[in-house]
């Protein structure tokens, strides 16, 4: 691949627990307007668009119908990826490399507050014959995985709780975050047990919001943008969807997705060559599990590293400076979008009080949530 591609604009609404004042189309419109202003482009300059939507989350069959108007893509090439936002970003990236215009846009949205039966809906994602009759709640599935992960790696409950404390604290300084709070590990450990060993505070609460990203190939990016953020590597992978056939202790999907992205970026030692990361932490233990799967930590090392503060903002390898899903909120298919947003803000030096010093390479990783085993990774550099 000869062409380089950069993020030249990004727009967001910020993330709130509930947004009764705006519809999902208005959320996207706001994010799109901000992204286009940031990039200095108009919809007519854009060659292709990708939206991210999942039918049951949006409350529509074939939810892609409502994608073109609010991003300015009427009678333009646009289609929908029902996946993680980073998969949409990868699609936009591939369209630029394929020659469908020099500028491409990826959109993602969460209007989780509209969903009345969220838990039942997730159960509806399980295999209708083998898994659904078990009537497992998504939290029970996550709890089983957490138990196995802790058993295999020696990770403790306290270490998982430390992730919650750190992320919710980081979120205090993120103006976009909706679930920030200052607590200690005891508070997490003593909160209501939802499904052992998972407590209420280990689970990320949901949020609403939208993110729109404008990508451009090298020449266009340099012409339009002072601080293009380059996509150095991108990867995605799906492990098995069946509950009975998966590896419960390890996040294989994150490992494969990361290796694909590392290979593209020419990264051999991720811990040394990457300065910071935004990792999916829909459940507290997921941050640790993903760090180990992606070779940023050795097996069993992520917990102790977190315990001594190694993943805090001032630590050796900062993780989730934004506050992650625990602090910002679970955004479902937009989770990857908020991760990319934070990495871009850090690399541009726009992260405010949470700004890291001298960072050049960041990683954003996401996961599609229970019961899936689909993970995505993107590596960005300034």
């Amino acid at each position: 691949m000869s062409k380089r591609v950069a993020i030249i604009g990004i727009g967001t609404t910020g993330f709130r627990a509930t947004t009764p004042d705006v519809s999902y189309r208005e959320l996207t419109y706001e994010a799109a307007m901000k992204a286009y202003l940031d990039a200095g482009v108009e919809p007519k300059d854009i060659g292709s668009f990708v939206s991210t939507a999942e039918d049951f989350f949006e409350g529509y069959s074939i939810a892609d119908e409502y994608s073109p108007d609010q991003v300015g893509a009427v009678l333009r090439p646009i289609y929908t990826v029902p996946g993680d936002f980073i998969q949409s970003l990868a699609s936009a990236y591939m369209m630029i490399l394929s020659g469908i215009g020099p500028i491409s846009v990826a959109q993602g949205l969460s209007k989780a507050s509209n969903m009345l039966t969220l838990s039942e809906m997730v159960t509806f994602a399980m295999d209708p014959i083998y898994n659904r009759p078990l009537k497992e709640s998504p939290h029970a599935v996550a709890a089983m995985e957490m138990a196995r992960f802790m058993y295999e790696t020696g990770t403790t409950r306290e270490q998982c709780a430390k992730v919650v404390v750190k992320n919710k604290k980081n979120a205090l300084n993120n103006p976009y975050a909706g679930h920030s709070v200052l607590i200690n590990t005891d508070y997490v450990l003593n909160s209501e047990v939802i499904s052992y060993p998972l407590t209420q505070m280990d689970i990320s609460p949901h949020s609403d919001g939208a993110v729109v990203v404008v990508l451009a190939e090298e020449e266009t990016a340099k012409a339009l943008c002072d601080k293009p953020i380059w996509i150095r590597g991108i990867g995605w992978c799906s492990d098995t969807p069946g509950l009975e056939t998966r590896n419960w202790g390890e996040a294989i999907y994150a490992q494969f997705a990361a290796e694909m992205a590392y290979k593209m970026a020419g990264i051999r030692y991720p811990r040394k060559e990457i300065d910071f990361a935004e990792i999916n932490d829909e459940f507290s233990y997921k941050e640790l599990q993903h760090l180990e799967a992606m070779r940023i930590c050795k097996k069993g090392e992520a917990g102790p590293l977190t315990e001594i503060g190694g993943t805090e903002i001032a630590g050796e390898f900062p993780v989730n400076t934004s506050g992650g899903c625990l602090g910002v909120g679970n955004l479902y298919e937009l989770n990857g979008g908020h991760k990319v947003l934070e990495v871009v803000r850090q690399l541009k030096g726009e992260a405010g009080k949470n700004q890291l010093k001298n960072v050049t390479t960041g990683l954003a990783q996401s996961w599609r949530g229970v019961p899936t085993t689909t993970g995505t990774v993107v590596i960005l550099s300034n």
Partner: protein
Amino acid sequence: MRRVAIVGAGLTKFYRNVQETPKELAFEATKMALDSCEMKLSDIDCVVHGTAPDAFDGIHMKGEYLSDGSGAYRKPYMRHYVGGGTGVMSPIHGWFHVASGMFDTCLVVAEEKMSSAYPHPAGAFLTIFDHTTEQPLFPTLIWIFAIEMNRFMTTHGYKKEDIALVAVKNKKNALDHPSAQLGAEITVKDVLDSEIMAWPVNRLDISPTSDAAACIVLAAEHVARRVTEKPIWIDGVGWALDSAYWCNRDLYYPDYVEVAARQAYKMAGIKEPSKEIHIAEPYDPFTYKELHHIEGLQLCKRGGSVQMLLDGVTQRTGNLPCCPSGGALGVGNPIAATGLMKVIEIFSQLRGEAGKRQVPGRPTCGLAQAWGDLMQVGTVVVMRS
């Protein structure tokens, strides 16, 4: 941008109420496609899956559920959809994966099991309409297409008995298709005498609901030349969505198909589509849609499609055979799988492997097109041998 070829294809039989699970359908088509080009799953770098609403199969995030059945176990896997236009979007999405240089081979799978939506998949369409302005009216798909068909007929002065010829042609073509669900010898009178669903749409103007899966294997040029002697090249792709506010548009002409077609023709270097395209598979979920799309695809002038049909130009033996497979009306309409079935038909025709359905005159350039959502999507692929 690299050249991308289709090197293998697989298609299950089209049925109403299959016993197989959606995953098994996807597996069957995937296995057939890999076998057809003597490739193994280990030769495949990535997988894309096209499947329309989750409500059909009745599984939330059904792309995830279908992943291992589609051969995506521990591979980069991505689902995409644009409503009814999904099936022809699938090879386009796969094309990016390979043309961009990210991957050398890509498995493109499309699956739809509509019978899981019980008693009828029409129920899945109740929630495609705008929640504030349209859903309170309880519209159905057939209503809105009746509005479109009426507008199309009124604008051009087309007669119902002429449009009915599309059903006669396609159902007859489908008799020769081994996967077909509704191949039949019928007459114009049969169509006109069939039950009126919502005037001017009669029962035989509508394609059936079906369960099926389809799969193609895409490869970059250096791999394709090694795998097969007869690669079929994807030379042009185009897609576009019109506004979701369909009430604000004039429905007599599909602008979205024209935009998509012009994008694909530009990429393929086609200047005079009606001469340079030898064979076409326009999307025909309703009889009038085939004509509507032929006009949008610039294969005839606006208002000229019925004359083309009456002159026999679109028959299998005509100058520009349209839906030689039997189309959605004859073979069946498992939404996403239909679009890919059309791509596979052009693939077989250009390879000269369509058996009884083979059109005469060795076609070298063909086109497949699909349409969907709220009458707003056009997806077009131009292929050459």
